[in-house]
């Protein structure tokens, strides 16, 4: 009998091979277009992980993606497709901005940040409550409502920064006043890595614990994978769905909070270049597993920040970042499953050979 470990080894090496396959396939494409894939890859990797600056920027880019992907994962656990994390992120930013602009500047920093985080969570959760309530009480699919609300959230930010919250000192530029120093999140010395990363990591591990070793997590899984059984077992379905969406919105809102507090120092347009959607993709790549999400977020953050080198050193247009990203994802997704079934066949064959 082939040991379980050996089977796992085959599956594991299959996954690695699929990764390599993706890179090789993209490499061939690059070669055909007259570029040296080796220099391009090393450029991206050194740009992402080459030195402490690169590493720190990778983590900075990864943090909001991580929050968003974790938020998607919470909802996905119950079978909800919360594509509205982008909007919830923006409402989180709005919530924390409100606190930062209204509290006196002499507020102690810890209190200020705590209030900002709370306000962000409340705003994000309430924004997520709209699709949640519509889903639970009116049976309206949460995906479309939360998707449409993303556009509403972006326009709300624009409205606020062009209107009531516009900085009166620099007149007419679409941004709020700069936050007072006490509203700035502590950074890792000499870099832009901020407390948000730690919070995201903690949430990731907590989520892992909650989902995998509590009653709540178990029930959530049953509801997500088999709603009929959950109904039969008389689980409080509605309450779970609403709580999950609230939590999801709150976690996404923390991304908005950490961006305005640690990175921007004010509310402005272009706050999120689609972190929510990237997070959505990351969550699905990581198969909703919180720990995997953390890893994938950092890798993707590294890719996105390292890809600067495509434009700076290789003089390629920005479009190549998307081409590379899309090709790698597609090859990854395709080869992962193909190789998995192939390695499964191999395992069965080996098993059969051993038995005979």
């Amino acid at each position, binding site marked *: 009998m082939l040991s379980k470990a050996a089977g796992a080894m085959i599956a594991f090496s299959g996954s690695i091979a699929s990764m390599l396959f993706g890179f090789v396939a993209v490499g061939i494409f690059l070669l055909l277009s007259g570029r040296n894939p080796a220099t391009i890859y*090393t450029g991206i990797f050194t740009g992402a992980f080459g030195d402490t600056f690169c590493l720190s920027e990778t983590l900075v880019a990864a943090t909001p993606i991580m929050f968003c992907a974790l938020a998607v994962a919470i909802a996905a656990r119950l079978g909800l497709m919360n594509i509205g994390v982008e909007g919830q992120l923006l409402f989180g930013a709005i919530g924390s901005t409100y606190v930062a602009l209204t509290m006196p500047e002499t507020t102690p920093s810890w209190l200020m940040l705590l209030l900002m985080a709370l306000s962000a969570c409340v705003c994000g959760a309430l924004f997520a409550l709209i699709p949640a309530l519509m889903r639970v009480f009116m049976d309206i699919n949460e995906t479309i409502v939360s998707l449409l609300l993303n556009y509403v959230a972006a326009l709300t930010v624009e409205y606020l920064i062009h209107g009531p919250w516009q900085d009166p000192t620099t007149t007419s530029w679409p941004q709020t006043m700069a936050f007072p120093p006490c509203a700035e999140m502590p950074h890792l010395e000499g870099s832009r890595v901020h407390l948000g990363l730690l919070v995201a990591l903690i949430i990731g591990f907590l989520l892992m614990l909650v989902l995998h070793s509590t009653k709540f997590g178990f029930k959530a899984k049953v509801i997500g994978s088999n709603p009929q059984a959950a109904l039969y077992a008389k689980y409080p379905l509605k309450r779970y769905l609403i709580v999950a969406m609230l939590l999801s919105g709150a976690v996404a809102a923390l991304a908005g909070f950490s961006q305005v507090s640690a990175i921007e120092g004010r509310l402005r347009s272009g706050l999120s270049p689609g972190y929510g959607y990237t997070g959505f993709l990351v969550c699905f*790549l990581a198969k909703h597993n919180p720990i995997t999400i953390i890893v994938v977020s950092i890798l993707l953050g590294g890719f996105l920040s390292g890809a600067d080198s495509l434009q700076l050193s290789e003089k390629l*247009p920005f479009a190549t970042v998307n081409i590379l990203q899309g090709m790698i994802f597609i090859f990854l997704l395709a080869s992962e499953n193909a190789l998995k079934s192939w390695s499964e066949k191999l395992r069965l064959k080996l098993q059969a050979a051993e038995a005979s």
Partner: protein
Amino acid sequence: MPHILFVFLVICFTVLPVYSANEQKTVKAGFLFVGPINDYGWNCAQNEGRLFVEKKLAGKIQTVAVENVPESAEAERVMERMIAQGAKIIFATSFGYLEPVLKVARRHPDVKFMQLSRFDKRPNLRTYFYLHYQGSYLAGVVAGRMSKKNKIGFVAAHPVPPLLQSINAFALGVRSVNAKATVKVVWTNKWVDPAVEAEAAKGLIDNGIDVLAFDQSAPVTIVKTAESNKTYVIGCYTDDCQFAPNYWLTGVSFDWGPYYARICQSVLDGTWQEGTDVCDIKTGNVKLSSFGKAVPEPLRKEVAAAKEKIANGSLVVFAGPLKDREGRERLSAGAKPNIKWLAGMNFFVPGVEGTLPKN
């Protein structure tokens, strides 16, 4: 999926090259663009300025450019990377870059920064403003004369000072020759979304305008929409006469090249200083595009004369006393606008119709 990390690390450490900034005698200049450089509009004009520098100062200046840089956290990282690659001067070609520029400039006192359209002071920061509005005024003169129905439309992206300057100057130009005409403004809320731009133009045309002006990042759509709806059109950023052979009037375009080359030359000479520059009709950076065949000869002469007067300073577009639409005085009699006043514009002059989001 931890194996992904493993693979990344393996690749990182096996092929990690020694990253040495190659020594060179040329000075490196970095350019940040807020959108795609082939938008045939704003960023395209900026990029042409960069290419002009490369050509003019070949062998002395080397440029690096990154497009689609959001005006947020990303901008800071991109500038840091440019500096790590040896860039000595950085051109931030959109207004939203100021905050990240200030942060990076503080960390790198030896690198020079050029910020467009915003006002701030630092020893290694030079700001530059483009008085696009002077061209808009002249275009307004053309529009005011050509309009038969006295209704002129203006499609604009976002209510930010440079656009408000353009719209107001345009309206002043219109009113200077046609006191009855009004300028209707429709905001699209988007720098680039051709379908919405076209629909906004169509909406104005349905409303009865007969001259259309606009300020959007990518101009072709509106120009063609105007042509197919038999409405005169005033261009923006690029000379799009070919897209509206019958209804093109004129347009306002930029020529950044000579200015950027001059700045880069001053870096080479070591004469670069902090301060503020103005790029306008006088310096030749703001230009009026060619006239369409619909514009009669006397009007061309009139516009040329007005252009001359703006260039020699005898005609000031925003001259005091200037009242806004609500009747509040914004500029007292005899006062001339300074850059700070212009950069803070947040009102409409009389003759402009449309909403202005305000607190």
